[in-house]
């Protein structure tokens, strides 16, 4: 069971809602994934309209709604969006995205930290999207982030976990849940993140653009579960060389003092 900000989730797969061919397919994919956390771009929805295409399929009794600030170029814009979202929906959850470069959509670490500090003080439950920088993860955690969301590779690239080395450090150090976000293009990538010890993964493009998004959502659900089970079962360390099961060269002599 995953807990973020005192809310428990039995599914460790979070879903994004962009790029689907229709709201109906999105709804079916969400359902097939078993997710309990759905993120929506604030710029895409009309929060005050219950008949909004996207909002109408996110049942607040079934899903935690995680509005995101995608499109914000700095902390001021993100904070403004967040306040508007809370005023319209009463929801304190927020996926903070500050991406000033529209070409790479890479997150701005300085502005993300500034916005996190301010929004936490205002009572938001902030889950910041971030580059896979271990020190930044700790700084965000200290600022009160409820989880951190490092990228596996740039948004929408489907390149998988190119930042594995740094995500491993983030996971090892983190005092808050780590959700691997962005770049996860295949169920095997999601499984890899979970095997590494990530608490959850957030997937959007890989499911939304699949030939059969509903089947793909199911495949991701299984991959996330398999990866988590493997992590909990405990995997051995990798090695480049063959290792004797008892690497004891000289050690018995070293212990003769005992």
């Amino acid at each position, binding site marked *: 069971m995953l807990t973020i900000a005192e809310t428990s989730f039995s599914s460790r797969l979070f879903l994004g809602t962009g790029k689907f061919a229709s709201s109906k397919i999105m709804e079916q994919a969400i359902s097939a994934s078993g997710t309990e956390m759905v993120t929506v771009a604030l710029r895409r929805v009309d929060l005050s309209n219950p008949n909004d295409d996207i909002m109408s399929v996110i049942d607040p009794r079934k899903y935690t709604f995680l509005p995101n600030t995608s499109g914000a170029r700095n902390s001021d814009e993100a904070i403004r969006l967040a306040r508007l979202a809370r005023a319209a929906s009463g929801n304190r959850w927020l996926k903070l995205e500050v991406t000033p470069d529209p070409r790479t959509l890479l997150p701005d670490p300085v502005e993300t930290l500034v916005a996190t500090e301010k929004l936490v003080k205002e009572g938001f439950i902030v889950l910041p999207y971030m580059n896979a920088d271990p020190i930044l993860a700790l700084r965000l955690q200290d600022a009160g982030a409820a989880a951190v969301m490092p990228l596996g590779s740039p948004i929408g690239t489907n390149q998988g976990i190119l930042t594995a080395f740094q995500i491993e450090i983030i996971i090892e*150090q983190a*005092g808050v849940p780590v959700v691997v976000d962005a770049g996860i293009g295949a169920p095997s990538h999601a499984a890899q993140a979970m095997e590494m010890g990530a608490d959850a993964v957030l997937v959007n493009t890989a499911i939304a653009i699949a030939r059969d998004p509903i089947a793909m959502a199911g495949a991701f659900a299984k991959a996330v579960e398999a990866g988590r089970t493997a992590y909990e079962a405990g995997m*051995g360390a*990798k090695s480049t060389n063959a290792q004797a099961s008892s690497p004891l060269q000289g050690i018995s002599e*070293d*212990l003769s003092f*005992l």
Partner: protein
Amino acid sequence: MPDFFSWQNQLERCSESDVMHALECAKPGIGELSALLSPAADRFLPQLAARSRDLTLQRFGRTTQLYAPVYLSNFCTNRCVYCGFSATNKIDRKALTLDEAEKEAEILYRRGFRHILLVSGESDAIIDVSYLENLAKRLCSRFASLSIEVQPLSTEAYRRLFAAGITAVAVYQETYDRELYKELHPAGKKRDYDFRLDTPDRAAAVGMREIGIGALLGLSNWRAEGMALGYHLNSLRRRFWQTNFSVSFPRLRPAAGAFAPLTEVNLKNLSQLIFALRIFDPDVGLIVSTREEAAFRDGMLGLGPTRYSAGSSTAPGGYGNPELNGEQFSVGDHRSLPEMAAVIRSKGFDPVCKDWDASFQESTLS
């Protein structure tokens, strides 16, 4: 902190295959630590030593730090049944004046020490925050680092001491066994288990560069103490990621009061505990003091520990006057700094006397 006895149950359940997995695991957690400390791991001591040796070499290189304690006072308001300083023991009591304490430190400085640990019995009326603050201000320009091992203090007190030049705080829980703790500390402020347990948090919160924790071995089940130490260390690391941590492994030594250890912790047990904690946390400083005897300390060089005390006296004023009584416990290794350094060099290691600089704290001090 989970119940002490739950650790014991967890340890008993570990199998040899759990131990083999823990030895191969890339990032051991509490589950792996329990396997490494379990009775099932006893016969794997050489494997634990090899892994601990490799990790220590990788993370610390071929170096061993050296330090010495300065005992400031043996007055104590507590009645810890195992301690030579206990208020109930009839020993010569002495508290150094600031001048006397400075003189003791000066002797260590001339002997080559640049890291010193200021130690006292727990008596607020004798060694208070102002005393430590004034002493730190007198010493901080000469010593690379000043650590304290005194009574648990408030956050505000630690803030003052950090500003005065204290770099590190050591506080040992003695035993993480809450029930036994009550029995062993029948009177005095030390009875408050939770206040003591939270002391590292208060010290780390003000920016202390290093926090030392430990359990006194010989009181309760050493394997479960190891689990609690690992858990405590891990939880501190999660919250204070800018702080360095160290762990000491004091075994009960003969002392006034003639307290007999409640459990045996032999040298193999002690080694297993050190190796397991190294494998669990490759970056933690591991300290073996002069409580232990020379043969053991020499043998452990390079296998896990990273810091040794040397040439220690545990009596207030004991460096200027070696004939003084009133020591906390009898020392097991009497070798001087040059003698210890020679042994370290002979093993292919570098004895490091300075590994910090007060200028790091200048912005705080100014």
